[in-house]
């Protein structure tokens, strides 16, 4: 299989590109921020997005979805990144769907996701940095479980209809085994969410579980073997965040290169200065390499390859580095105007910072790859 988009994938990209640019442009995000919107995205826009079929992209055709894969989800995510669109697409239609697929929970939640009625949030992180460990406790209680502990950096966690929660049912926080993944509906008793406005104006919740009671059928997959669906979720989330980062980085580069072609100083377009040309060319190269790494990981995931997991970490680490460079150069090349709130380039820098942290940054994934390689 060649490492470029096939004709159908290219068509989907064109559709997504036009749709997102028209309906969810940067000005949409800016308007939500300026209105101090308490949801973090537009429910109406999410519904309309679902009517386009996008939210069912990774759900099987027999369950009413499009039956496509990570490549196609990534094509949509890149456009969301390029337009800085506030959307629950990554958490809901990509990561949560990956966690639920093939489980008894899928039937309960997929119809709502396809219809644009359901928003899912991922309660994974417990500290300021993404880690593999899971400490939030889930103890057997009656027919089900009782959850105690806290989570943070839960995007859409304060408004989600469905929370995917990683909890510890046996062993200690760093153990591989003994993790169980739960699908918990909103408004569970004992669960409180406090929404925090992040740097990029998105909203992420800190969740407090004070003896939250859930039924046994809230378990995704098997008790104590929650790493299986959790790893599906993480791989989908990581490669999805990488695709979104590609869009953020690409959008920032396009703005910067555009500016180099219109801004004049010393009587010349600043893009004619070699000092800037070389930096722009270096940035282009970094983003091209990152794009290849992302597509490789997506294809391997779609083929169920054993090499997919490592490729996903390469993709996340590389896009983190490339997109970070893109937004830094983006602001620098714009000069003073790049520091103003009025101009969009700063939003790209903020969004890239958030996506870099999401599901582990470049250091996390480089370390992970090193451990896997035996050093």
């Amino acid at each position, binding site marked *: 299989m060649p490492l470029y988009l096939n004709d159908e994938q290219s068509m989907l990209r064109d559709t997504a590109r036009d749709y997102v640019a028209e309906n969810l442009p940067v000005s949409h995000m800016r308007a939500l921020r300026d209105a101090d919107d308490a949801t973090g995205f537009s429910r109406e826009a999410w519904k309309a997005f679902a009517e386009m079929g996008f939210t069912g992209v990774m759900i099987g055709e027999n369950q009413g979805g499009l039956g496509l894969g990570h490549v196609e989800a990534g094509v949509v995510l890149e456009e969301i990144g390029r337009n800085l669109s506030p959307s629950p697409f990554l958490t809901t239609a990509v990561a949560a769907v990956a966690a639920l697929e093939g489980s008894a929970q899928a039937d309960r939640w997929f119809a709502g996701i396809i219809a644009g009625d359901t928003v899912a949030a991922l309660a994974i992180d417990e500290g300021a940095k993404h880690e593999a460990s899971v400490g939030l406790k889930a103890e057997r209680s009656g027919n089900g479980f009782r959850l105690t502990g806290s989570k943070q950096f839960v995007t859409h966690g304060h408004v989600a209809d469905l929370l995917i929660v990683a909890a510890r049912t046996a062993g200690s926080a760093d153990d591989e085994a003994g993790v169980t993944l739960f699908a918990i509906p909103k408004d569970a008793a004992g669960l409180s969410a406090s929404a925090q406005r992040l740097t990029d104006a998105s909203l992420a919740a800190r969740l407090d579980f004070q003896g939250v009671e859930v039924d046994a059928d809230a378990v995704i997959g098997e008790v104590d073997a929650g790493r299986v669906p959790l790893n599906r979720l993480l791989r989908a989330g990581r490669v999805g965040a990488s695709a979104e980062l590609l869009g953020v980085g690409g959008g920032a580069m396009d703005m910067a290169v555009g500016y180099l072609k219109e801004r004049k100083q010393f009587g010349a377009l600043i893009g004619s200065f070699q000092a800037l040309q*070389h930096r722009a*060319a270096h940035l282009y190269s970094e983003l091209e390499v990152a794009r*290849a790494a992302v*597509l490789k990981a997506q294809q391997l995931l779609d083929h169920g390859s054993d090499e997919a997991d490592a490729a996903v970490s390469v993709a996340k680490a590389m896009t983190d580095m490339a997109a970070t460079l893109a937004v830094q150069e983006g602001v620098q090349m714009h000069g003073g105007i790049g520091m103003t709130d009025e101009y969009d380039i700063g939003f790209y820098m903020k969004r890239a910072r958030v996506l870099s942290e999401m599901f582990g940054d470049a250091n996390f994934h480089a370390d992970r790859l090193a451990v896997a390689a035996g050093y």
Partner: protein
Amino acid sequence: MSAGLDAFRAETRAWLEANCPPEMREPVRSDADVCWGGRHFAPSSPAQQQWLERMGERGWTVPDWPQAYGGGGLSPAETKVLREEMAAIRARNPLNSFGISMLGPALLKYGSEEQKLEHLPKIARGEIRWCQGYSEPNAGSDLAALATSAVSDGDNYIVNGQKVWTSYADKADWIFCLVRTSKESKQGGISFVLFDMETPGVSTKPILLISGYSPFCETFFDNVRVPKANRVYEENKGWEVAKYLLGHEREMISGMGLRSGGGNPLIEGAIATVGLDSNGRLADPLLRAQIALFEVRAKAFAAMSERFIDELKAGKAHPAQPSMMKYVGTELNKARSELIMAAGGSDALEWESERSNGGTDARAWLRTKANSIEGGTSEIQLNVIAKRILELPGA
């Protein structure tokens, strides 16, 4: 995946299994393990000779060239399958050749039918070894400033001048060479000619490099008589051929950013010198972090190389994309060598000892410094990307 391709994969796997000698599946350890072919080729083992002959017979030294010119006639998809199956058994490249990587593609596009039939099959079978006469003492990054003259004399050109950095000129049989046929125009006065290195008036002088090796030569032409029939494409239009060939050269050099063969010498070397701590992590955490972040880039670049080749075969690659590949690949290769030296510590500094295998790592480290100079410097590649891909205003 089509059924036809699956069948081709199965056949290819079986053929390679039966025909690739076990010695040819071992990692390349020294220059003697690399087969360059040519009139003076002395195989380092019977297996090396056998592997070249068997692959050459099938045209699989150049799998995607037409069969009429000694190639394998494979489609891009089949070529990729062959590469994958060769990689799976860690088969060595049967033939390294500037004829394959540089001249061949240019001849296929610009050569006459006679030139293709004369030269391509000999390249495919490794019978003639080629060198590249491009750079001159006063024409490096500004290659089109070249001055080697070719003056018309009936059916011949009389060539006079000097080339420099001619890789393996002292070992090559033929040269593809840029010469000036007109002073009227800088780029529009260049022609692309081919001639035998045994032609009277050709002499070479190896240049001793910082690595202690002499892979490059100065090459002198003193009234060398070259038939006009050996000119590729039109007179004074050689720059077009030269640039096309440079794209392929850059593609080849970018491949140096890819690690080939089994194992990972950087990681293994670091473990051997620094050791692992009780958690199985490299005991020097800063070196470990540098290596880990480098490996991310190296693996991402491997994906980029796959993507680039796939896009190239499908005609989807930007014509200037080889400049990006060359830039990233050579900078990575230099970075890898820097890390190998840092990991090796003072052991790696020994220039001639048995422990250091004759200073292998140190010499390779020094050799890599040329990667971002030869075939157009990194700065030239960045210029090309800025102007042709990003379309920034020209200076």
